[in-house]
């Protein structure tokens, strides 16, 4: 069995790829499938990665390309019903009394176009700089900033429209 050595630099990125994919897609199984596909591509093309360049943005670029393909294909393929889908449907975290209700975040995120969801998650969850987010999406920084603004404002409206009581409702 070919197992990757534990010190391989890609390994440290796997949890981040998984967290991002989970937030982007919602469904646990589909998200891990995306990560798996991304890693297979990454392992086989690692020799193409330039030493010293940003490994994280390289990996996220691969994932974005695969995700874009999957989104395109999904429109042509009948929907699949995941075996276990804790992601979007059932909130798994306890309700928070302070700040924003996490279950509402899930629901609101799914209402955003993917390109806005991506930048919100890359910057807000993965802590990427605007430059890194732009590189991993292959778009100019200005595009990242405008998507970020539109996406966050849309979320604010969605959550505000729901109103404070609804905001904390357990779905």
């Amino acid at each position, binding site marked *: *069995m*070919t*197992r*990757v*050595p534990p*010190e*391989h*630099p890609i*390994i440290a990125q*796997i*949890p*981040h790829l*998984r*967290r991002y994919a*989970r*937030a982007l897609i919602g469904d646990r*199984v*589909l998200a*891990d*499938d995306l*990560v*798996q*596909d991304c*890693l*297979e591509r990454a*392992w*086989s093309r*690692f*020799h193409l990665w330039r*030493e010293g360049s940003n490994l994280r943005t390289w990996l996220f670029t691969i994932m974005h390309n695969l995700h874009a393909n999957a989104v395109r294909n999904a429109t042509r*393929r009948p929907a*699949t019903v*995941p*075996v276990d889908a804790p992601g979007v449907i059932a909130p798994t*975290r306890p309700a*928070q009394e302070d*700040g*924003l*209700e*996490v279950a509402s*975040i*899930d629901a609101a995120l799914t209402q955003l176009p993917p390109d806005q969801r991506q930048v*919100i*998650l890359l*910057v*807000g*969850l993965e802590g990427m*700089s*605007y430059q890194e987010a732009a590189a991993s999406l292959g778009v100019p920084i200005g595009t990242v*900033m405008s998507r*970020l*603004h539109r996406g*966050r*404002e849309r*979320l*604010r409206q969605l959550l505000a429209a729901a109103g404070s009581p609804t905001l904390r409702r357990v779905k």
Partner: protein
Amino acid sequence: MIHRPVSDGELHAFVDGELEAVRRADVEAWLADNPEAAARVTFYRQLNEALHRRYDHVLSEPVPPAMLHPSRRRLPATMGRAALAASLLVASFVGGWFANQALRAPQIVERVVQVPVPMTAQAAMAHAIYAAEVRHPVEVGADEEAHLMRWLSNRMGREVKAPHLQTLGYRLMGGRLLPAADGGAACQFMYENASGTRVTLFIRNADADQKETAFHFKVESNGVSVFYWIDRHFGYALSANLPREELLRLARAIYDQLSL
């Protein structure tokens, strides 16, 4: 106080730590007088925090083993799950061993690519460790060359030869046995030139379906340069802290000798 107007973009940059320190003070002062904008900033911050609360637990989930096996490819996602579901159903009737096989079955479908990464990384690491050794750079010295070759060939399961590089100014110092990333045996030969520069040749068995490759060059993260290639039964990685051209010259000489 009069400030340059704060743009929407700057509010986000303020939240995301992308704003230069000078301007940050401006924005803070401006927010104090603009409750509507301040509320937006608060929301953006809460949003980021909520995302972390919601998704950070994924970071501590154990990584599925399949993600660490680059050469094993599963079926396309949807098909794979259907097959897995079907096999689980069957497996629940036939028990342990079969369950094990059935669970594995959809995973090992085709071998897509051989990844040279572990080899170069391993070669570069072994180089860094042993080339720096003063007293014990090799396990068996070149004075026992015949024994060294017999021993390593036995452990590798195939005849191994150490190329001779004297004409290029490098003498064989000896070699050692190393573990390969796949659990098998690998070996390393070490050479030295008159000025004490050391070069190591790492050899491991190539997988059966591995194709011959051209020379590839890579600088590993520890700064060691590696040329690697696959020729018939073996994968080779030549490591040194040498300029690319000089290392390539050696790699070519080795390739020519070993492919005779």
